[in-house]
């Protein structure tokens, strides 16, 4: 993933100056850790405020008289039911009901929506959305923005000191506080926090203000991963893929009931059939017994040694204080407390099915 094709963050110089260690992720050269290190960065985010450069993610503005119709076709979503400024987790599904990407859709106006997509899928998502848009009176516009996340219990206070008031904005709502800005109260850590898309010059100014506040630290991709894993949040490409549907992934809560029954979204038929059959495997939290982490790819076995599933994400949870993992197990085993065994380099590590999240969500819902 090195060479001319690697994409670089617009604020890369700031990360270099901050002492970031870089690594490749989804075609981007990304800060993995800063000098504080993953453990301190993780804990700082849960206690104070962590600043993340997530400009590898893509914002699309979808607008036009048939914006609602396009989104209702592309996603298992009732776009018309979204109130202005309301955000919702949704998906692009394939015809088999598999998850092509998970997205956050926010209603900006009567006929304007913001769609935030994952870095690794951004190119495919745009192609997919544009192909669908050909049948509708709608415009799909990828936005050229720096995208920052500020997460943690002091995120709102540090933004306030930087001159950005967030008072009335609640979890899973998004607004446009300034020209070409998009700010939502959302994130990928389980903490209260915000994601802000904005032009590069504004971003440089905001970052300078935020870093002048001792409560704010840069946080790299390594801690972003351990934070989201403790929070039980899925990483597309690992925990959810085109081979997993929202039913087996335990994400049906993101699909409104009437849409499940009558929605005309892509993959509707296959998803209805999958729900009717009942998933063969379900996504679960996994708590390894002891100190040894269990990693993505490890095979799981039941007490009799029969294949039981596999691990999709795994590592150490600095706030949990023990290893944490996520994976899929056969539906009869998918109950908290059930013991399975993970094969780690030939040794069977006992692992207990655990409810998610590992650390409680602390969203500002009202």
């Amino acid at each position, binding site marked *: 993933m090195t060479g001319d094709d690697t994409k670089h963050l617009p604020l890369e110089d700031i990360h270099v100056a901050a002492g970031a260690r870089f690594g490749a992720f989804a075609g981007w050269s990304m800060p993995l850790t800063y000098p504080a290190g*993953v453990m301190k960065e993780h804990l700082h985010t849960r206690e104070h405020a962590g600043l993340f450069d997530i400009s590898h993610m893509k914002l699309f503005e979808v607008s036009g008289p048939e914006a609602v119709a396009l989104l209702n076709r592309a996603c298992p979503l009732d776009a018309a039911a979204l109130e202005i400024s309301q955000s919702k987790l949704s998906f692009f599904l394939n015809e088999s009901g598999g998850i092509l990407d998970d997205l956050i859709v926010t209603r900006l106006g009567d006929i304007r929506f913001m769609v935030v997509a994952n870095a690794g899928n951004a190119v495919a998502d745009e192609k997919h959305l544009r192909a669908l848009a050909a049948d509708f009176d709608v415009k799909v516009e990828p936005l050229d923005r720096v995208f920052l996340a500020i997460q943690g219990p002091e995120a709102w206070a540090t933004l306030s000191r930087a001159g950005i008031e967030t008072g009335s904005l609640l979890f899973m709502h998004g607004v446009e506080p300034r020209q070409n800005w998009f700010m939502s109260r959302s994130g990928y850590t389980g903490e209260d926090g915000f994601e802000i898309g904005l032009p590069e010059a504004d971003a440089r100014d905001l970052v300078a203000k935020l870093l002048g506040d001792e409560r704010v630290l840069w946080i790299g991709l390594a801690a972003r991963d351990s934070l989201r894993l403790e929070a039980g949040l899925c990483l597309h490409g690992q925990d959810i893929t085109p081979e997993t549907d929202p039913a087996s992934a335990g994400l049906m809560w993101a699909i409104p009931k009437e849409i499940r029954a009558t929605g005309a979204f892509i993959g509707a038929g296959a998803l209805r059939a999958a729900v009717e059959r009942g998933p063969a495997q379900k996504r679960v939290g996994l708590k390894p017994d002891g100190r040894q982490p269990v990693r993505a790819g490890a095979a799981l076995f039941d007490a009799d040694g029969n294949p039981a599933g596999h691990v999709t994400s795994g590592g150490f949870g600095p706030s949990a204080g023990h290893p944490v993992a996520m994976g899929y197990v056969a539906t009869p085993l998918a109950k908290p407390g059930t013991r399975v065994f993970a094969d780690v380099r030939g040794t069977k590590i006992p692992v207990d099915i655990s409810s998610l999240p590992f650390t409680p969500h602390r969203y500002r819902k009202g």
Partner: protein
Amino acid sequence: MATTYFTEDHEWLRVEGGIATVGITDYAQEQLGDLVFVELPETGKKLAKGDTAVVVESVKAASDVYAPVDGEITEANGTLSSDPSLVNSAATGAGWLWKMKLADESQLAGLMDEAAYKAHIG
């Protein structure tokens, strides 16, 4: 008097009386980041040069540490079971990984001294 050697895989060996104490260098622990688990070898295990002796696990990933020479494990640093972060805070001291009885001391001739290692990591 102990002599210290280094490998291209960022390990150090302190050799005294036919026994090598082995660990990873400060450079290596910095690259790995905060360690959360060290899978230690059993005493008496015979290793050939290049075999995996220890697995060190950071928050994010697991990495193998190889036997730099042939030999037999005489002791593993049990303190690391309860405090793996010693490898980060004292890589070349209290964070040592294992001790091994050398099978063939002539293999040491292929390793680097500190000056050569410093040049190796630039």
